[in-house]
């Protein structure tokens, strides 16, 4: 078209020149004849059309190709550099953003196998909202993945692929393309393994890519696929490593617990006998019928002996409480009653310290089949922990409720104490961890063990300077359903408190 126009204009120019020349007398008159001019123009057109057409096409091609080659070069350079990126997320972001920006596309999504390998998910996307692409899942058996697996590394063009299928299959494939907002899908293969897909769409719906583009996409995909394969392997290794570390720390923890169990059982057997003798002899004197024989000072000493032997026995009892596991005797309990008794037990201490204890106990709390000592221990430890955290002047709020839909009994204990250092929060439930010089550091550890024994959970939320909140959740499941209380209560308070 352009070439034709150019030739026509050239012809006109020649015509004009010849007309002008014909006016002179030294030019032969036949030159000015129109037939001659037309003949000359035809000859010129025939001779010059082809070379000119080739030249002009080449000119245009060169201009656009330079631009295209430059883009392709950029992407290939990037693909080489990507080999150094081992983090899947970072890699995915780099690929989609570069691919999208350099080729000026509407959307690009990098699809990779999910962790379970049962489907594909979008690792990163260009031109999408994060919340949108996170939800997308393409099953391994989907029409698109099946098509890609069948056709190997060839770029899948939506319109072309859909046209070749029956309407049902075409419909399924369209849904997959829609889910990825894609018109084209580049499969990423490492050998025979499909490591992912690059799905993209352009701003112009019928934008076409030619064979050379597809050739480039294949080359690009070969480089990118390897990078993704490596990043996926690194990710898998990382996860396996994390799991291994978790198992290791659990093992260490259970070994520690096992050691404490053996220690506690041994101590209980060996120490409780001498404690029984010390405390028993003191009690014999204290409970003597003839009290007049007892000096006031001696009586004080004897009371101290009884009290301190109980304290020593309590330490081993606490240790035993978790080492016994499910062996501890259980009965049907009213948790709200135990909680109220526990609050009453500490009320003297809290009133001395100027600590106000408020409680709110919800209705419909079902009876809980458990060991009374263990549950009392849980409540007492948490409340005492709050008391000790406050020191003096403050408030403790205790809340118990039953969440019927989830069958959860929830107990929350909050205090207005100074809060817990973030570095201490992780260690809070470790055995023998304490920040006080006069404590053993078993309270919260034992509490956690007991709560876990009943399938429950314990959580602490705290910030330095704004108090702490402990939440215990017991599942009221079949395992904890109430049973008829035993006729004879075998549990008892060994000594009156104080």
């Amino acid at each position, binding site marked *: 078209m352009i070439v034709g126009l150019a030739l026509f204009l050239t012809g006109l120019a020649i015509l004009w020149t010849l007309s002008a020349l014909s006016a002179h007398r030294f030019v032969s008159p036949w030159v000015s004849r129109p037939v001659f001019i037309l003949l000359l123009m035809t000859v010129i057109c025939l001779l010059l059309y082809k070379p000119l057409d080739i030249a002009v096409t080449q000119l245009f091609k060169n201009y656009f190709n330079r631009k295209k080659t430059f883009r392709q070069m950029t992407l290939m350079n990037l693909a080489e550099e990507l080999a150094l990126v081992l983090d899947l997320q970072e890699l995915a972001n780099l690929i989609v953003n570069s691919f999208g920006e350099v080729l000026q596309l509407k959307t690009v999504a990098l699809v990779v196998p999910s962790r379970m390998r049962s489907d594909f998910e979008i690792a990163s996307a260009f031109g999408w909202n994060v919340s949108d692409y996170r939800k997308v899942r393409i099953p391994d058996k989907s029409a698109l993945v099946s098509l890609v697996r069948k056709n190997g590394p060839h770029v899948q063009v939506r319109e072309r692929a859909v046209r070749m299928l029956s309407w049902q299959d075409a419909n399924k494939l369209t849904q997959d393309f829609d889910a990825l907002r894609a018109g084209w899908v580049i499969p990423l293969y490492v050998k025979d393994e499909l490591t992912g897909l690059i799905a993209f769409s352009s701003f112009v719906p019928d934008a076409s890519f030619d064979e050379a583009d597809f050739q480039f996409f294949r080359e690009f995909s070969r480089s990118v696929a390897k990078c993704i394969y490596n990043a996926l392997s690194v990710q898998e290794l990382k996860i396996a490593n994390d799991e291994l570390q978790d198992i290791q720390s659990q093992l260490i923890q259970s070994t520690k617990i096992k050691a404490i169990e053996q220690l506690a059982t041994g101590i209980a057997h060996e120490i409780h006998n001498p404690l029984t003798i010390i405390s028993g002899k003191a009690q014999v004197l204290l409970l003597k019928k003839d009290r007049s024989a007892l000096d006031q000072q001696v009586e004080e000493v004897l009371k101290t002996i009884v009290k301190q032997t109980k304290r020593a026995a309590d330490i081993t009892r606490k240790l035993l409480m978790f080492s016994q596991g499910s062996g501890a*005797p259980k009965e049907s309990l009213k948790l709200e009653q135990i909680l109220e008794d526990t609050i009453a037990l500490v009320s003297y201490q809290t009133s001395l310290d100027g600590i106000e204890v408020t409680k709110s106990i919800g209705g419909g709390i079902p009876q809980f089949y458990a060991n009374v000592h263990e549950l009392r221990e849980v409540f007492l430890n948490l409340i005492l922990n709050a008391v000790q955290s406050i020191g003096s002047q403050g408030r403790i709020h205790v809340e118990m409720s039953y969440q019927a839909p989830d069958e959860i009994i929830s107990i929350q204990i909050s205090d207005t104490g100074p809060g817990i250092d973030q570095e201490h929060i992780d260690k809070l439930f470790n055995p023998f961890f304490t920040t006080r010089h006069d404590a053993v550091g078993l309270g919260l550890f034992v509490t956690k063990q007991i709560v876990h024994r009943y399938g429950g959970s314990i959580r602490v939320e705290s910030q330095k300077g704004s108090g702490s909140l402990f939440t215990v959740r017991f599942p009221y499941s079949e395992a904890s359903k109430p049973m008829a209380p035993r006729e004879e209560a075998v549990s008892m308070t060994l000594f009156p408190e104080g």
Partner: protein
Amino acid sequence: MKKLLVVDDEEEICDFLKTFFEEREFEVQTANSGIQALDSVQAVNPQVVLLDVHMPGMDGMSVLRQIKLRFPLVKVIMVTAIETQEKIEEAMRLGADNYITKPLSLEYLEKDVQEKIGLLTGNV
């Protein structure tokens, strides 16, 4: 006369319990092993036996079984350092009348023993 048998391999424990209950007008016998305990039950015919669970040789559970088999009227209170569901259930199955843990509260123990004797003589 109220008769009590204290069985524990720790002599000191037997001693203070003897002192304590004698002051409360009990006739107290002590035994330091299972075999001795069975002999004493036969010889003294006590109303109540305080029986330690963990003893070398014949342990408390075996003694309990024998006592309940041969002298079903004798009340037996088991005494142990460790309280577990299995042990309690075993003791209850064998016919124990109570199960208490060390260190002992003598006030509670006295109340319990008196109660068992009351039950026996119908003077509750």
